[in-house]
Every structure is written in structure tokens, then in C-alpha cells.
């Protein structure tokens, strides 16, 4: 598999993730899709770092993961707090503010 293939793959996964974010209403699933996108990025990075014989990419992946983890924590915490006030995870019901 050449670099292009990896990139293509990641692009596909990325866009799938994007689709997920765009079409799902369940906050959790949306967030999962974001994670998916991050994965796609990771694939990119890994592929590049292989191709360049450099490790920057891989190191970066670690950061990305860390960030993902952190975001997961915070995000889920937020979801929980929301759930306390309004028992829903439906994105469309978060529209008290508009205009």
C-alpha cells in the first residue's frame, strides 16, 4: 500500500466521521464520530511518519490521543450535567438560544 492509499483511507474515514456528526442527533454518537475523525487524522500522521522515516507524526498521534481522552472526559462530564437538568442527549433539543 502506498502513501496515497493510506491517505485515501483516512480521508474516507474522516468523511464518514463527518457524516456521522452531521446526521446523528445523539450527542454521544456525534462525539464518537468526532473521535472517528481524529482516528483518520492519526492514520494520516502515521502514514506520513512512515513515509518520511520520521517519528514526529507518531509522537503527534500520542498528543492527539491524549487530547481525545481529555475531551472525552470533559465532554461526557458536560453531557452528564446537561442530563441532570434536561434528560436528553438529543442535539436538536439544545436550541433554547437562537436568532
Amino acid at each position: 500500500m502506498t502513501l496515497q492509499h493510506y491517505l485515501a483511507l483516512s480521508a474516507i474515514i474522516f468523511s464518514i466521521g463527518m457524516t456521522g456528526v452531521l446526521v446523528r442527533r445523539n450527542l454521544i454518537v456525534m462525539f464518537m464520530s468526532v473521535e472517528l475523525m481524529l482516528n483518520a487524522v492519526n492514520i494520516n500522521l502515521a502514514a506520513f511518519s512512515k513515509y518520511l522515516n520520521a517519528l514526529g507524526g507518531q509522537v503527534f498521534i500520542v498528543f492527539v490521543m491524549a487530547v481525545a481522552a481529555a475531551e472525552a472526559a470533559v465532554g461526557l462530564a458536560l453531557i452528564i450535567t446537561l442530563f441532570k437538568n434536561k434528560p436528553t442527549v438529543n442535539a436538536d433539543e439544545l436550541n433554547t438560544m437562537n436568532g
Partner: protein
Amino acid sequence: YILAFLAIISSIFMITRENPVHSAFWMLLTFFSVAGIFVQLNAEFIAAIQVLVYAGAILVLYLFVVMLLNPKSKGFIKIPFRYVIGIVASFVVLIQVLITLKSANVIGKPGVYTQEVYNQYGNVKIFGYELFSNYLVPFEVVSVMLLIAMIGAIVLAKKD
């Protein structure tokens, strides 16, 4: 190729499952396949933490939350229109990216870590070296960030 295929399929399934739990499991599969891809890209260490962090930590967290809240899932949006435009939009992005890909000429100069080096030292070691030499600062920053995330998560989730 199989892995790639698997990843794509499973990710598609993931975003199309009604029940978040199912999608979580499909996501697990995706993660595993991605991990496999990492192995192919001789990034064993990454593959390892991929499995650990994602499959281990994050996903569990998800399932935990899902179980905890157990939201009555409403499945897909009723308006197919948004469904369509969502897909279309991301598809366009995909196309754009792919267009770029066909003219892929990497201009970066290759680094020092060739296959031999790997075989010589092994991935983890050089990885650690790289991490703590060139990427020390970001590493520290990330630690700060994790700290904040922790505090924040506690503050928010803790009931008072």
C-alpha cells in the same frame, strides 16, 4: 487492504446504528482495525496505546456514560433532507481531498529513522527519545491540559 476495508465498513456501521451501544461496539472494531493499520506502518507502540487508550479507556467511558444515562434513543433524524445534505457535504469534502491526493508529491525531506534504525533499536526506544527531545514542550503542555480536563470533569460531574 482487509484492515482498511474492515475499518471503513465498521465505521459506516458505527454511524448508522440506532442504538449508541451498538455503534460503540462497531467503533471498537474500527479502532482495532486502525490499530492494525498502525502496526503495518511500523508504529507498534502507537498501535498498543491505540488499543489501550481508545479501546480501553475512552470506549469504556462511553459505554459507561451510555449505560448511566440510558437515553431513550430517537434514532435518526426525521428530516431526510438534512440526512442527505450531511452526506453530500462530507462527500464533497472527500472528493476535494481525493483530488488533492492524485497530485501527491511530498516535498518534505525524509528523516533519519529508516527501517534499519527501527530494527536496530526498536520502535519504543526511539519513540521515547524523539518524544522527550524534540517534543518535550508539547508533552508538558498536554500534561497541563490533562490536569485541567481532570479538574473540569470533576467540577462538572461532581454533584453538590
